[in-house]
């Protein structure tokens, strides 16, 4: 696989683009690996990349039941930020932010990272107090954060209505300037290409149907493409984590819900930042193709169908039009859904399990995309060393028995 550059682009342009090679090997499963990752999404591909690059483990495979990036990685609204409240969260989300800043260059793949800022709006005094508290907590943890009053919000983002007209007027906002958006597919493909170059086998259309274990330790897996022997299995399957965990009789504290998102018809550039409102619940950014990318909260019922009810769409559009009235006549182009695995404290689970050699990464719920590089990095460390690093340590399964939860529903900023 050649290095991408302006020269390769010119050369291929002159050859009618006939020389491009596949970005990763579509591998067939071998009989034995040193480790197997279940799940070829953002977190799974990032984990494989860091296992190969930083831990020298490249006789490994990613097993994906569909196509890589076809799950939540291909369905999220791509918002990147690290403005969570607690120290443990700031550490992992801001590690991701630092990795995002150089990821395109490191992977030699344009992930279209755009640090255009993220606004979290406040609509009443209690909310403003909580958000200001979070600004101070962020700054103490070295995460960039500012408080804007209503006038400054209007200067930063002119389309937001700060008049007295709305039922819940905008009275201020937090701004993380390094926050923004990127291209979700490109991140998956970039990590897959990077991992494949380092020797990782990427195996698609391969569903895991059973885990083989003996004397309390992992021996291998059964898949729709044959049996594989391995001493280490790492599950990064988001909404399907309970399905995988059941194969080893493990109960998880997660519940899988539909999360919907949608895009409008493309329009000229009008929103050059990311607007999020917890109270008047919706969030919105604008893609490079001109579509408004819009999201809000989960459907209340459990579900694995990747679709939800239209009542959710109606409510989030009502919220969006309340915040930004000029959007009222836009047409929707496309709606879709994913399966989000919600943890009781809205924080991730990156953990060993009672089965030796079986590791699980799940519980990111509605906020997993922004953490992709740091999740993969921490998970790779856990898999390679059989112990978490400092960043991953607060997110074990043990916290649900010890009570040391990392309660981030407020900063998750998505209605659960």
């Amino acid at each position, binding site marked *: 696989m050649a290095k991408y550059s302006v020269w390769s682009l010119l050369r291929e342009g002159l050859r009618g683009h006939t020389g491009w090679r596949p970005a990763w090997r579509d591998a067939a499963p071998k009989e034995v690996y040193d480790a197997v990752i279940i799940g070829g999404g953002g977190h799974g591909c990032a984990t494989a990349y860091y296992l190969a690059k930083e831990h020298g483990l490249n006789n490994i495979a990613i097993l994906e039941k*569909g196509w890589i990036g076809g799950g939540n990685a291909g369905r999220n609204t791509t918002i990147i930020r690290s403005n969570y409240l607690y120290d443990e969260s700031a550490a992992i989300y801001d590690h991701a932010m630092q990795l995002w800043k150089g990821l395109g260059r490191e992977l030699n793949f344009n992930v279209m990272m755009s640090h255009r800022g993220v606004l979290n709006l406040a609509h009443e005094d209690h909310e403003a107090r909580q958000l200001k508290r979070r600004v101070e907590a962020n700054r103490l943890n070295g995460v960039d954060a500012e408080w804007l009053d209503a006038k400054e919000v209007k200067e930063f983002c002119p389309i937001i209505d700060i008049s007295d007209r709305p039922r819940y007027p905008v009275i201020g906002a937090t701004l993380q300037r390094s926050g923004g958006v990127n291209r979700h597919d490109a991140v998956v493909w970039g990590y897959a290409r990077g991992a494949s170059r380092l020797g990782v086998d990427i195996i698609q259309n391969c*569903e895991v149907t059973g885990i083989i274990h003996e004397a309390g330790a992992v021996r291998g897996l059964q898949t729709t493409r044959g049996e594989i022997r391995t001493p280490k299995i790492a599950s990064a399957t988001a909404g399907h984590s309970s399905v995988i965990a059941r194969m080893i009789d493990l109960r998880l*504290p997660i519940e899988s819900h539909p999360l919907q998102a949608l895009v409008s018809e493309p329009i000229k550039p009008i929103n050059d930042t990311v607007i999020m409102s917890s109270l008047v619940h919706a969030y919105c950014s604008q893609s490079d193709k001109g579509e408004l990318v819009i999201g809000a909260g989960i459907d209340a019922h459990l579900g694995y169908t990747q679709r939800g009810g239209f009542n959710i769409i109606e409510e989030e559009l009502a919220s969006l039009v309340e915040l930004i009235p000029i959007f009222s006549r836009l047409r929707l182009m496309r709606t879709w859904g994913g399966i989000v695995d919600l943890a009781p404290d809205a924080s991730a689970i990156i953990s060993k399990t009672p089965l030796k050699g079986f590791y699980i990464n799940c519980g990111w719920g509605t906020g997993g995309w922004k953490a992709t590089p740091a999740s993969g990095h921490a998970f790779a460390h856990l898999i390679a060393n059989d112990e978490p690093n400092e960043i991953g340590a607060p997110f074990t399964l043990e916290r649900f028995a010890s009570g040391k939860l990392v309660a981030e529903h407020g900063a998750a900023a998505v209605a659960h």
Partner: protein
Amino acid sequence: MFLIECPYCGERDQREFSYGGEAHIARPENSDDLSDAEWADYVFMRTNTKGVFAERWVHAAGCRKWFNVLRNTASDTFLAVYGVGEQPPEIFGQDLATPSGEPVIGSGNDATKVIPGEEG
């Protein structure tokens, strides 16, 4: 959107109901004797089934009564409605082909769907 058969009011739109999560989670009577891990199992751990799942709904904008439902979470098919304190009926023919698999018809997830006649 779902049409849900309230056992007291009849078939109504999903919007009239609130969701009550997994059904049949009984609060342990001997909570003082449980270890932290056993208590965590009750408070936090969930079955989160892909397939036939027993759950609770309440007709919040109607009679405001709670009831239990069996629904296939892989296809959103409503299979049974039964009262609080009752046991769920047995359901046949809803098994998924593989643990993460989809039913042949009815799921929105195209990743692993098999169209009848194209099983190959």
